[in-house]
């Protein structure tokens, strides 16, 4: 198990720490199996993390496109924004 992970420069970073961080990451991922404490392999968790971050970036890209269009078309932007604030 330890041979899979490369040794860090300072051996102060224990494997338990890494496992803890990876499991925390796993809990954030939107997986159906998320609720189960079923441990996935760390590499898979990392792969899914990268994919998830990329998909979140894409979502924000699409949302900014949509928002820029909406802001362009809205004539009474000030009133709209004030309304949006009140509705929160």
């Amino acid at each position: 198990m330890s041979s899979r992970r490369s040794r860090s420069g300072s051996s102060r970073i224990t494997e338990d720490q890494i496992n803890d961080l990876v499991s925390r990451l796993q809990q954030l991922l939107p997986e159906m199996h998320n609720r189960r404490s079923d441990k996935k392999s760390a590499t898979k968790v990392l792969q899914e993390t990268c994919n998830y971050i990329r998909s979140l970036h894409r979502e924000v890209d699409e949302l900014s496109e949509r928002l820029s269009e909406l802001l362009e078309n809205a004539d009474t932007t000030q009133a709209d924004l004030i309304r949006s604030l009140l509705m929160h």
Partner: protein
Amino acid sequence: MSSSLLSANPALNSGRSSTRRRNKKKIQSHAIAENLSSNDQHQNSPIEWKSETQQQIYSSKLLQALRQVRNGDGSPAPKRVHEAADRALATTAKGRTRWSRAILTNRLKLKFMKKNNIVKRQRKVMTSISTGNSRSQRKSKVKILRLKSKSLPAFQRKVRVLSRLVPGCRKQPMPVVLEEATDYIAALEMQVRAMSALAELLSVSGSSSSH
């Protein structure tokens, strides 16, 4: 006497003052980062991105930023909206994370050091062409080879990929990258929630005002 000196070398003085301004901005951006990180000592608690309060804080910052974007340009490009949204997100993080500090300092760096970087790049190209010295090119090739080498364990490779995705984490050790990634994902999810809610409100109010 001093006034005649100033008028005699206007170009020199303007050059010097512009570098002084640039250096000031450099120091300022570092100072901002340091101030933000010093707050860690008072409140080390991470931001709870799932809370409604945080989303409201972010939404109001986002609205302010978007209003500025709209007033600045005639037509706000999606890229500007995205950058404003990222900056608002980084500000909401209160500088407690590396990725937020990196987003904020990157903006300043881009604004004030863009010219500097272009000059540096041009100089590099000119020297490599004139001296036939491809040392810099060789270095980059070696770097690429190292990254693509399959002798690296898969885990390390993935961590490196992850470190490129999270802003400000390219040279950070593994536990730092993992830690930053957990916070970054939670923040991004909140950003998506807030921006979709805002888009909904704007589209609804837009359609209702047209009636």
